[in-house]
Structures are given as structure tokens and as C-alpha cells.
């Protein structure tokens, strides 16, 4: 559905993105993940034909962004960052305007589509309100509704949950998930949790370059290396003894002492070889030595950690390449 090849954009001497190549299949929800200023917005602006890349090309639904920008724009719904709206207009009038600009002909069919978009975004009860008076959450929904008009096959959403309160974030995410069922969606964010929840595939982008792309699950698995188990023991067992005990187990790679969970509750992190679950052995060893075992928990790398790891690894490379 979306295909980019070697997208590169310079703002003067400053490189915004470099050699961004990816594909998105029909019906996929792709997360664009990266710190602020990584080039997410630039990439999206190129896909929406707002900016032209310095090098490279992109196609959306088979139409080239250079050759047929109007055809491309007909097939995308775009929600820019910060949701720019005409603050003095009323919701229904605004959506009607957007529908007309998008070339939806006939008053009746336009009204029907606007009604549908308002319904799916939960805007029916505010349709006569003035946009500038709406809460941020509702403005975000209006932004989504305008993107939906014209029934685009592709939705491009730039940080759709920024500045919302937790309840609104959950509502918007659910909305995006629902919309993603029969559309191709690209959404950018710097919140990892969001990607885990809504996206089938993630592209991590840092300093203008793609540093990783995979499903959230695969990314976790690939980067994790080994399994990790968090152990909490009670009583007054001296930490040094427990560490020694854990290190003696076959398959242990490293034991780390973590800050205690509470009074008389020492915490340790045991890393083991890939694909090996040490929990039974740990439990057995501790019980045998009469160390009171309080809890035993397998730990997954969170996307946060993956993200920091990839970005850091990438930074290291960048420094080397620069030097």
C-alpha cells in the first residue's frame, strides 16, 4: 500500500532524514517510533506530498508522490501534529468544508459522510459547538474525523495522543484500533506503550535513519538476548550469600543486586542463557538453603529498554562513523 525507497531530506545543510526505506501492507498498522526531532514528521509530510524529498521516491496505492500528488492526496487522510483547525468554525460546518474540498460531491452524500465520520469519532453531541471552545480531546477527534472524510485507504497520524489526558488517550487509541481494521494506518509517537498497544509493526527511527523495524514482539525477543528473572527474598539472609548461591546455579550468566523492595526484602536480578527458564532451579536452591523466597518473576524487556538500547547502539555507530 505504501512503499518508500531511499527517502532523504535536507533542510539546508542539515539532514532531516536519510535513506528511509520501508513498506506497509494493506490493512497494517505501522508505528513510527523515535525521539523528538528524529524525522518522523518529515517522513509523514513527504508521504502527504506537503514536502518533497531531496532524494528517493515513495508510492501510495501505486501512485507516485511526484507524478500524481493529487491522486496520492485523494487516498490519504492526514492528522498533523497539534491538530490545526479553524478555531472560529463550528464542527459540522468545518467537516462539511473539508468534505467539499476533498471533492465529495452532492450535498446529500456529503452530509451522509460527515455524519458517518462524526458518528465514528463520537462527535454527534458537539456538532454545533465552535471548534475553539472544544476540549483538546474533542479537537483531536475532529482532527481524526476530517482525516476520515473521503474514505481514504491510508491514514497518516502524527502523534495522535499528544497532550491528552489518560482517559482521552485510551479513547483515541481504541478509535485508532477500530479504524485500523479496514485501513492502512501509519502513526508516529514517542510513547512506546502506545506502539505496543496499537501497532502490528514498529519502525524505530533515530536521527533521520531507520534503526530497527519489526513487530513489537520480535523486537523484544531479538534484543533481549537472555531471559531475566527477578528474585525477592525475605528474612535476614546476607545478600552476598544469596548472590553466591544464585551464581552457582548452572546456566546463570550474571546476578545483579537491585535496591531492596522493602524492609527485609532483598531483590536480585538473574540473567540466564537464551531460552532457559531458571525459575525452578532458583526456587529449589533457595528453599534448600532455607532462604525465604518471597517472589519469583520473569522479566520482559519493555519497549522503553529496547528503544534506549537500539538508539544507544546506533549513537555509538554514529560516533564511530563520524570520527
Amino acid at each position, binding site marked *: 500500500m505504501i512503499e518508500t525507497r531511499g527517502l532523504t531530506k535536507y533542510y539546508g545543510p542539515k539532514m532531516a532524514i536519510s535513506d528511509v526505506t520501508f513498506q506497509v501492507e494493506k490493512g497494517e498498522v505501522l508505528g513510527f517510533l523515535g525521539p523528538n526531532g528524529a524525522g518522523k514528521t518529515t517522513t509523514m509530510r513527504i508521504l*502527504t506530498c506537503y514536502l518533497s524529498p531531496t532524494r528517493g521516491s515513495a508510492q501510495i496505492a501505486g501512485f507516485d508522490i511526484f507524478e500524481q500528488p493529487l*491522486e496520492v*492526496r485523494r487516498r*490519504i487522510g492526514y492528522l498533523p501534529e497539534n491538530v490545526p483547525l*479553524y478555531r472560529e*468554525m463550528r464542527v459540522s460546518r468545518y467537516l462539511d468544508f473539508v468534505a467539499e*474540498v*476533498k471533492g465529495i460531491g452532492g450535498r446529500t452524500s456529503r452530509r451522509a459522510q460527515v455524519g458517518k465520520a462524526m458518528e465514528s469519532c463520537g462527535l454527534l453531541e458537539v456538532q454545533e459547538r465552535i471548534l475553539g471552545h472544544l476540549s483538546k480531546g474533542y479537537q483531536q477527534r475532529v482532527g481524526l474525523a476530517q482525516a476520515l472524510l*473521503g474514505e481514504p485507504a491510508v491514514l497518516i497520524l502524527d502523534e495522535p495522543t499528544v497532550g491528552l489526558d489518560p482517559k482521552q488517550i485510551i479513547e483515541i487509541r481504541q478509535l485508532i484500533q477500530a479504524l485500523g481494521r479496514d485501513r492502512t494506518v501509519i502513526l508516529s509517537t514517542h510513547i512506546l506503550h502506545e506502539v505496543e498497544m496499537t501497532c502490528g509493526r514498529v519502525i524505530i527511527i533515530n536521527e533521520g535513519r531507520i534503526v530497527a523495524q519489526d513487530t513489537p514482539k520480535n523486537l523484544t525477543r531479538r534484543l533481549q538476548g537472555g531471559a531475566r528473572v527477578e528474585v525477592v527474598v525475605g528474612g535476614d539472609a546476607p545478600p552476598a550469600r544469596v548472590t553466591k548461591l544464585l551464581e552457582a546455579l548452572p546456566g546463570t550468566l550474571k546476578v545483579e543486586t537491585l535496591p531492596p523492595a522493602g524492609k527485609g526484602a532483598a531483590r536480585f536480578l538473574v540473567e540466564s542463557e537464551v531460552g532457559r527458564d531458571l525459575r525452578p532451579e532458583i526456587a529449589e536452591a533457595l528453599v534448600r538453603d532455607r532462604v525465604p523466597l518471597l517472589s519469583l518473576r520473569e522479566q520482559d524487556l519493555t519497549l522503553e529498554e529496547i528503544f534506549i538500547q537500539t538508539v544507544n547502539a546506533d549513537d555509538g555507530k554514529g560516533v564511530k562513523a563520524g570520527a
Partner: protein
Amino acid sequence: MRNLWAIFRKELASYFISPVAYVVIVLFLLLMAFFFCYFLAVYTHLHHQYQATLNWYFQMAGQNPFLAQQMPMPEPPNFNVEVTRPFYFWLSFMMLFILPMLTMRLFSEERRSGTLELLLTYPVRDSQLVLGKFFACLSVFALILVLTLVFPVFVNLTTEKARLEAGPLALSYLGALGVGGAFIAVGMFLSTLTRNQIIAAVLTFGVLFGFFFLWLLGYSSDFLGQFIGLFRSKEFVNFFKHLSIFGHNENFISGLLDTRDIVYCVNFTLASLFLCWFSLGVRKWRA
């Protein structure tokens, strides 16, 4: 075409949602009312003088017919020259101040609020966007011009003595609309250059005043010629007069319909609209 119409309607409506259009209309009509009253008062005064002179002439003629034959009959003041022309000249002068207020927000506000980004990712050609906005602004200006018809209509309805003739009147309005269109296109182009409405308005005013100044140079050539030899050359002066849009407006107001003036206004407008369109497209490549 539908997109253009949509943009046109939205822009037109947004003039009247915000107080801009009302403020501009009221301000302009007040100023024009002032000028109209002033020129009417001057005309009335001249007419009184004329009647006094006429009375004196007949008296003298009764006493000394031979002397009267030597002297020309006093002429009545010409309403066209005393009221219509200066009124429409000042109307076009006041456009310098009024039109920047109408054009300043057209693009700069969209840039500031970010709505331009969204607008430019809809399936709309940049040219449709430019034309839609241009015609919306021109319509508001045309409405203002229609409202100024109140003055000539008032004169024609209330007195038999003076009359605004339809022909020169129509030409004056044609000139105002042509010149106004060119000014609007300039203002629109300049508003694509900045996010700040005030800067857009001041820039527009500056450029328009520059064109007025060119005309002023040509107009005051007799005076300037005393000091600068260049201004004694007719070609040099004509160059300024032709370059400035005001020189062309002058012809419309004095009741001359010259294709050169029409072509000038249309070209001026098209060139400015092209610059505006170009300026929008530059964003794609701007580094």
C-alpha cells in the same frame, strides 16, 4: 472546481465570522462619507460663488451690454470635476489602507495556526487555493464598493441641480475594482511570506505605497523638474506614470476607457497571483 468553490465560500464566511469585515466596512464608509461631504461642501461653495458672479454679470450686462460682450459668461462649476473625480481618487487612495487589512490574514494566519499544512494535503491544486481566496477577498471588496454607491445615489435622489453620470461612475467603479484586485493579489502574495498578520499588512501597505509614490513622482514632475533635470523629460515622467497603478486608475476616474489600463490591471493581478502560487510551492523545496 468544487474545491475552489468550497475554499471561496469558507473564506468569505470567515470574513464575517470574525469582526474584520465589519470593521473594515464601517471604517471605509466613514472615511468616504467624510470625503464626500467635504467635496460636496466645496462644490456648494463654488456654486454659490458662481450664482453670485452670474447675478453680477447680468446686472453689468443690463448696464453695459458692450462690456458684457467682451467678457465671457461665467461657467457653472462642473460636478464631475469638483466631486466625482476627487471622490473616486480618494477612494482609491484609501484602498491603500483598507486592503492590507483584508488580505493580511489570508495565508499568514493559516501558516501560523498550521491549517495551511492540512489544506495543502487535501486533493486541491495550489492554484485553486490561491484563486478561491482571491475571489473571496475580491467579493468582500466589491461589497464595500457597492455600499459606497450610497453617495452618488443620495445626490441623484435628493437634488435636481447636480447629477452623477452613469458612464463616468461605472468607469470609476471598474477602475476601483481593477486596481483593488491588483492590490489584493499583491497583499495575498505578501501574506504567504510571513506568519505574522501585522507584518503582512505593513509589508503590503509599504509596497502599495511604493506604487503610489511612483505616481506621485510622475504627478509632481513640474515641481521636481525645477530641481532635477531628468523630470523635465516627458518619457521619464511617463515611465513613472505608466508603471504606477495609480496612473492607470486616473484614466478610469476621468472617464477614459483605455485597453492599456485594463491590460495593465489584469497583468498586474495575474503576476501577483503567480508569485503567490509560486511562493506556496516553494515550501516543498525550501531547505
